[in-house]
């Protein structure tokens, strides 16, 4: 029987994220400007745009790697005194895995580093099974293919559950079956009240997601006028 406190009380759950007038600069130029969005629990936001439109920049700013030049992000509910970054997972172009360690060692490390007392957290072994790599757990990551590495990186989402997933081209190098599995995992995450913000060119299978279109030229024009 699971312990009673396994269910987090509703007051703790994150209810919404709203951003107003976000502007992010890189190298003194406005890359992203005037971005607004409003997400409630269970919703997903697809960040679309051409190469260089600032999709990755926006996600990296939300994750706290780049400072917001203007605007603010407000969280509704959620654990007190925690920033968006501390409640978010970021999956970017780099997988955050050490080639010399095995897939299991990598995941065990991140499970402890991102310490999480949630009852829904999968064990590292369970997370590897979730992404279909249970047999390769004791294999050094350096020998895995690009798609398999990406699946180990995605398994990190399950060992330390966090309400917000910031995904930058998460389906890169994934085969069709894994994309399907990942779409199911994202749907389950949203059904549990999670948030997904994804930048992508390929369809991710997010049903009913909001769309945010970034336009590189507009951001630069407005940035130059200011």
């Amino acid at each position: 029987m699971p312990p009673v406190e396994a269910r987090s009380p509703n007051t703790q759950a994150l209810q919404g994220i709203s951003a107003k007038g976000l502007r992010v600069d890189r190298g003194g130029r406005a890359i992203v400007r005037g971005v607004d969005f409003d997400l409630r629990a269970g919703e997903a936001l697809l960040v679309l745009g051409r190469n260089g439109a600032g999709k990755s920049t926006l996600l990296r700013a939300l994750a706290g790697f780049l400072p917001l030049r203007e605007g603010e992000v407000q969280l509704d509910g959620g654990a007190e005194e925690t920033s968006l970054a501390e409640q978010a997972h970021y999956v970017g172009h780099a997988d955050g895995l050490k080639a010399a360690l095995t897939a299991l060692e990598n995941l065990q490390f991140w499970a402890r580093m991102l310490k999480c007392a949630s009852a829904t957290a999968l064990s590292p072994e369970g997370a590897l099974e979730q992404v279909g790599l249970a047999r390769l757990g004791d294999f050094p990551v350096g020998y895995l293919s690009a798609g398999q590495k990406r699946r180990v990186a995605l398994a990190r989402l399950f060992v330390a559950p966090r309400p917000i997933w910031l995904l930058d081209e998460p389906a890169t190098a994934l085969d069709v079956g894994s994309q399907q599995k990942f779409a199911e995992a994202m749907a389950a995450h949203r059904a549990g009240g999670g948030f997904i913000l994804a930048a992508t060119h390929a369809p991710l299978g997010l049903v009913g997601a909001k769309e945010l279109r970034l336009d590189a030229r507009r951001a630069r024009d407005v940035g130059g006028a200011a």
Partner: protein
Amino acid sequence: MSSPLLALFGRELRIARSVGGGGAMGVVFFLILVSLTPFAIGPDLNLLSRIGPAILWIAALLSTLLGLDRLFQADADDGSLDLFVMSSTPLELVVLTKCAAHWTLTALPLIAAAPLLGLTLGMEPAALAGVAASLLAGTPALTLLGAIGAGLTAGLRRGGLLMAVLILPLTTPVLIFGVASASAASGGTVPFHTPFLILCGLSLMAVAGAPFAAAAALRAREA
């Protein structure tokens, strides 16, 4: 130490031990530097035993800095650093833990090897003990100062040389008081504890200040 930091410490040790981790490189480099010196200076045992502490200290300084440029570079390349920045564990503590692991891997073997190598330079027992004690007190400062340079150059290709150029001038006080306390151990006009306590103070200052500087440098990496 809490569980995330222990996990990080364990990971660093495991990576260094694996193939290509370069865990033993520092001490091997140290050994080569020290054994090359007599070939350059000649077999004058009196001279060698007099400048022995200085040779050991310079070799220790260089071999400590040798692996330090990779301290954050590897994590920056594979994206781990981004996840450290995001985690609820303060980045300053992550820096301090990584420095502790690096010190354990490179400086500790070096301190153990120093008295043996000092023997080949004809140093007296008291001087050997002095060198080991001064290295034990001084190498934390070297590692932590180097961490600032490693943080500043983490985003750059070929940042290793730039890091050495930035950091070597800052290590001057450590070198002065390190060699002074090692020499004072085998006699001289200065009592051993005067330079030794200053050396300990330098290390403590580095422990208190360097993690903040290195963490700030890592956060400003992209902006």
